[in-house]
């Protein structure tokens, strides 16, 4: 009997220990010395077939520099990524190198990341989009792609409506007129809009912002000096509401998902324009597959406030960062550098269609839309919505739905957003 008691106790202890164990490996403190033989990288890209050659080239480059180190890529599901990462960070465990979206997602977590300035100095000129991976003057991630919000249009619909696809509208009023013609001749809406998740307003704000805010207001906004009740900032939300009221958008925008319903509406020719992405979904390559590569146009923001100069809104899209607890920061940073070599990023551009952060990649063989986007990168500015905190963006999504449904006024919306922006 005694033996049975002992067995039970051992069994319970074993179960308890197994239960308490974690799926992630224990954290290694920087003080651990010795040669690092394994690096763990978390992302949501390496499982994607379109990114396979990109990852392989990065691995090969790293293997050349560090033959004794094995690299394990762990592809996490994107919709769970930050939840899993947050749990790993909270528990003090997690990967050495990890992928981030630029902007709030990485800035909120810089406490757990290693500044990379000294490691990426050589890459600074070659790559664009660093700002989205920086906080307080320090770089925490190296950009892999650029993410921005070009206004795409369907040239076939323009042709059917008797408009010249080579010269899209330059002002907002012209755009509204063109859209009226398109609606009349083809039945298509002006904009494909998905605002189910509240993301539509972000695209709208950034896509059209440079035609609404003056250059000074734009720069001030990015620098954190945001005057929410100024006429031009209010104009963004007024225009959003007016576009909804004037039925420029597809029906039911508040119940249409941006990914992938709104893109499907544009792809199927039911809307003439969409404020899309540069990488690596809802972009020129996706649209080209449905509309034909030469039928996808990219236009600058129409001018809403006279005297403004429209430009391409973009930031660093996704990029890799190094955890503070990485055993060997230099090796981990080298992995990040391998993931941003010209060779690897060229593969990512050609296979996945992403506009890569590397400004030296030759895109001359690509479709016109790519050439237009890339030519605008130099004169582009950071997107307006990326400067806002996750909390303000979340609120803006809900308020934008209220504007469309008519349950809030523009004044109420900017007042609430100003309060949230001040608090963040």
């Amino acid at each position, binding site marked *: *009997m*005694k033996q*049975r*008691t002992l067995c*039970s*106790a051992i*069994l*319970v202890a074993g*179960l*308890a220990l197994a*239960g*308490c164990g974690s799926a992630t490996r224990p954290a290694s403190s920087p003080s651990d010395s010795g040669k690092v033989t394994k690096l763990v990288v978390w992302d949501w890209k390496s499982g994607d077939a379109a990114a396979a050659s990109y990852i392989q080239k990065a691995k090969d480059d790293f293997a050349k520099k560090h033959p004794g180190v094995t690299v394990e890529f762990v592809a996490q599901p994107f919709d*769970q990524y*930050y*939840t899993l990462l*947050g*749990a790993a960070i*909270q528990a003090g465990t997690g990967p050495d190198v990890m992928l981030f979206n630029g902007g709030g997602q990485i800035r*909120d*977590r810089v*406490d757990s990341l290693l500044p990379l300035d000294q490691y990426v100095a050589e890459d600074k000129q070659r790559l664009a989009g660093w700002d989205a991976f920086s906080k307080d003057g320090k770089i925490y991630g190296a950009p892999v792609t650029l993410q921005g919000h070009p206004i795409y249009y369907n040239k076939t619909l323009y042709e059917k409506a008797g408009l010249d696809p080579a010269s899209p509208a330059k002002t907002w009023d012209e755009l509204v007129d063109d859209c009226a013609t398109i609606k009349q001749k083809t039945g298509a809406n002006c904009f494909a809009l998905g605002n*189910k*998740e*509240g993301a539509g307003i972000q695209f709208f704000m950034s896509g059209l912002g440079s035609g609404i805010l003056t250059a000074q207001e734009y720069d001030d906004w990015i620098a954190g000096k945001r005057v929410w009740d100024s006429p031009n900032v209010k104009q963004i939300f007024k225009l959003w509401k007016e576009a909804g009221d004037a039925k420029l958008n597809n*029906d*039911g*925008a*508040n*119940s*249409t*998902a941006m990914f992938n*319903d709104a893109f499907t509406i544009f792809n199927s020719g039911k809307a003439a324009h969409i404020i899309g992405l540069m990488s690596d979904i809802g972009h020129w390559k996706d649209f080209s597959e449905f509309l034909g590569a030469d039928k996808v146009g990219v236009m600058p923001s129409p001018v809403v406030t006279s005297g403004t100069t429209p430009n391409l809104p973009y930031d660093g899209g996704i990029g890799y960062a190094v955890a503070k607890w990485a055993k060997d920061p230099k090796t981990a940073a080298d992995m990040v550098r391998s993931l941003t070599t010209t060779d690897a990023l060229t593969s990512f551009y050609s296979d996945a269609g992403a506009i890569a952060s590397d400004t030296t990649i030759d895109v001359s063989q690509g479709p016109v839309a790519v050439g237009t986007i890339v030519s605008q990168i130099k004169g582009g500015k950071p997107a307006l919505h990326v400067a806002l905190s*996750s*909390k303000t963006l*979340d609120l803006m*999504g*809900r308020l934008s*739905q*209220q504007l469309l*449904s008519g*349950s809030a006024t523009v004044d109420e919306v900017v007042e609430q957003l100003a309060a949230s922006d001040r608090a963040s």
Partner: protein
Amino acid sequence: MRSERLAPYVLVAPALLIIVALRLWPLLLGVNFSFTGDGERNGAMVGLDNYLEMFQDATFQSALRNVGLLVLLLPVAVAIPGLLATFIYLRVPGHRFFRSVYFFPAVLSPVIVGAIFNLMLAFDGSLNTVLAVFGVGPVDWLGDPDVAMFAVVGVQIWATFGMALVVFLAGFATLDSALLDAARMDGASLPQTIWHVIIPGLTRTIQFVFVTTMIGMLTSMFGLLYVMTSGGPEGSTYLPEYYIWIQQGQMNRPALASAASTVLFLIMLVVGLLQISVLRRAGRED
């Protein structure tokens, strides 16, 4: 002899230890964590700050209102499987067919169910197309804040009532058929039979279904909400569980999420205990 006395404790110990180590202890850690700060105040004790912030948050208020709505809709969610089970038990024509059909949605993943109903309830979806034939609509089922929550709850009931139906059918197996025969002999109508024979006979089953359905609604609607509305429009379909996920995953506020988890746990505890006591009293009167 001494070891004989110890044996029961040892036999219970594994279950007890697992519950304490893997349930109660993490629960206490979570509650403790909810009194700490996020971001710059990470790890510092902040008292009730998270709770105060949460109760002032419009989306959390919306989540709490929706919990109230679920409690109000609970009798409907229980009555539907109860009635259908009764019809199957009373052997309506085709009852074997209906039994399997009714259970079928219960084996589908909420993501699949959500995706199917997304297509049906879309603004240009099939339901609005059908309504248009009758000159009604269109209704923005998932885009109108006054309608969306009812649409999602309706889908949740459709997707999950099969399990409750099976529980009811199991309850019917314990029902004394002599009572039903007696009611039939006395000329009782169907509503009379249900009210005076079936409901009193199934009190315990109804209690069980009430509690499990409520817990299911509060903790298992995440998949549907995520796929169908993402908490929107205008935050009208938030539930505490979705709020917890958003705060933890999207806003990087794990301590605030723990506070919301603690509140959800207390809500479930209170609602569960209230239901049990109310239903027990109702059962006793019968």
